[in-house]
């Protein structure tokens, strides 16, 4: 074998190792890992309750056969272009839920998309948004979830199409699309705006439905909030930037009121996937709903698709 041949072989071998290592479960934490995962104070379950409502955990994790929305047994199918996800049991049950988890394991799941056994989660679990929560807030959320009733039974395995069925690929996805930083307040803006920024971007994951996505399933950032695709056959999420094709005609008070009772300014009533979101935002305080509205109205208007009224 000539010199060139050897160099080529060496780089192919190296390339394979690099690709293998890059998709190994540790790669994300080596590059982006946050060693400030530890909370700085004792958890506050009451704050956790608000975050739980704003985060809409119930929408995906509630047991579909239970009338009590706080039974987090999981298993309600989430239909996506990549296949069907069955969100797991996150009740405090020690065997089937997350009852044996430590606080740090929970924080790492929520903020880094990494399981206690270090496998990466699918971003159908909206950790790309939740990563904006501080470890303190994530610990508050965990404290609240631990007060809920334990539920027996595991959710079925996801039914995903190839190549999405390969979890290893997610490590690359995370390296490419997951910004691991906590959301920082903007000192030039009001307290109300900052609260809204946090609730919309980190906790409420509103962008996850209200934005278009690229082929890898990641949000197209310069079109963020300008309207998203049909999710789960439940209709397209409209433009929520203050553009004519979006919320230009809505006052802050009108948006806040919609997030409480679902009525639009023309007294249409929210439907599709938003009806469930409003069940969650209805549990927030008036001040928090106004904060969300204030933040949405401060977004740069982006032209989106106009829609059936």
């Amino acid at each position: 074998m000539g010199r060139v041949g050897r160099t080529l072989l060496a780089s192919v071998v190296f390339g394979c190792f690099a690709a293998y290592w890059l998709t190994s479960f540790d790669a994300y934490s080596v590059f982006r890992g946050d060693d400030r995962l530890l909370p700085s104070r004792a958890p506050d379950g009451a704050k956790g309750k608000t975050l739980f409502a704003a985060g809409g955990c119930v929408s995906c994790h509630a047991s579909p056969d239970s009338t009590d929305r706080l039974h987090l047994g999981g298993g309600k199918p989430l239909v996506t272009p990549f296949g069907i996800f069955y969100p797991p049991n996150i009740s405090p049950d020690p065997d089937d839920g997350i009852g044996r988890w430590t606080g740090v394991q929970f924080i790492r799941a929520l903020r880094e998309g990494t399981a206690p056994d270090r496998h990466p989660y699918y971003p159908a679990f909206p950790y790309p948004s939740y990563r904006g929560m501080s470890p303190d807030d994530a610990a508050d959320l965990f404290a609240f979830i631990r007060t809920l009733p334990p539920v027996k039974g595991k959710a079925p395995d996801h039914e995903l199409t190839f190549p999405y069925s390969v979890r290893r690929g997610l490590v690359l996805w995370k390296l490419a699309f997951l910004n691991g930083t906590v959301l920082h307040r903007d000192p030039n803006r009001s307290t109300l705006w900052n609260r809204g920024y946090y609730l919309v971007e980190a906790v409420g994951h509103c962008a996850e439905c209200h934005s278009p996505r690229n082929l890898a399933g990641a949000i197209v950032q310069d079109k963020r909030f300008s309207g998203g695709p049909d999710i789960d056959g439940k209709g397209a999420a409209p433009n929520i930037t203050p553009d004519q094709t979006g919320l230009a005609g809505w006052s802050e008070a009108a948006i806040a009121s919609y997030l409480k009772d679902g009525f639009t300014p023309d007294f249409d009533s929210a439907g599709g996937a938003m009806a469930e979101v409003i069940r969650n935002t209805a549990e927030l305080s008036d001040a928090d709903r106004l904060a969300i509205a204030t933040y949405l109205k401060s977004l740069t208007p982006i032209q989106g698709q106009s829609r059936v009224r």
Partner: protein
Amino acid sequence: MNANRLLLALSLTAVVTVAFASTESIGDRQRIMKANGAATKPVVAMLKGEAPFDLATVQKSLADYQTGIATFVTLFPDDSKSGAKTAASPKIWDDTAGFKAAADKFASDAKTAASAITDEASFKAAMPTVLKNCGSCHETWRVKDAQ
């Protein structure tokens, strides 16, 4: 008129009639829903304390809901699944019984409230149950798409 032309004319008439029939029921059902919106506006203002309680207005809205929804469910012929900017979910035709049950529940909740509401306190207690029907029916049976 030769046979070909006759055929053409006939089929054109058929096409126009079908298009017209479905557009008409879509328009009719959307008008009923718009009226629901209009009937709901003063009621919500009262619930929020932005307008004084007025029993006659509340009773009129409750009566309008009941007559409106009775006609509404008859306006879903097979040829009105799409077109004319309808936001009706195709599920309405897949599970007509389920859809009718949602409509019946709305009508019966409105009826129960109409007899229960005599003053502001009973209004505040009974009205939210009726209004929950708007969102819960839209959650399952209506899909707004981007155009």
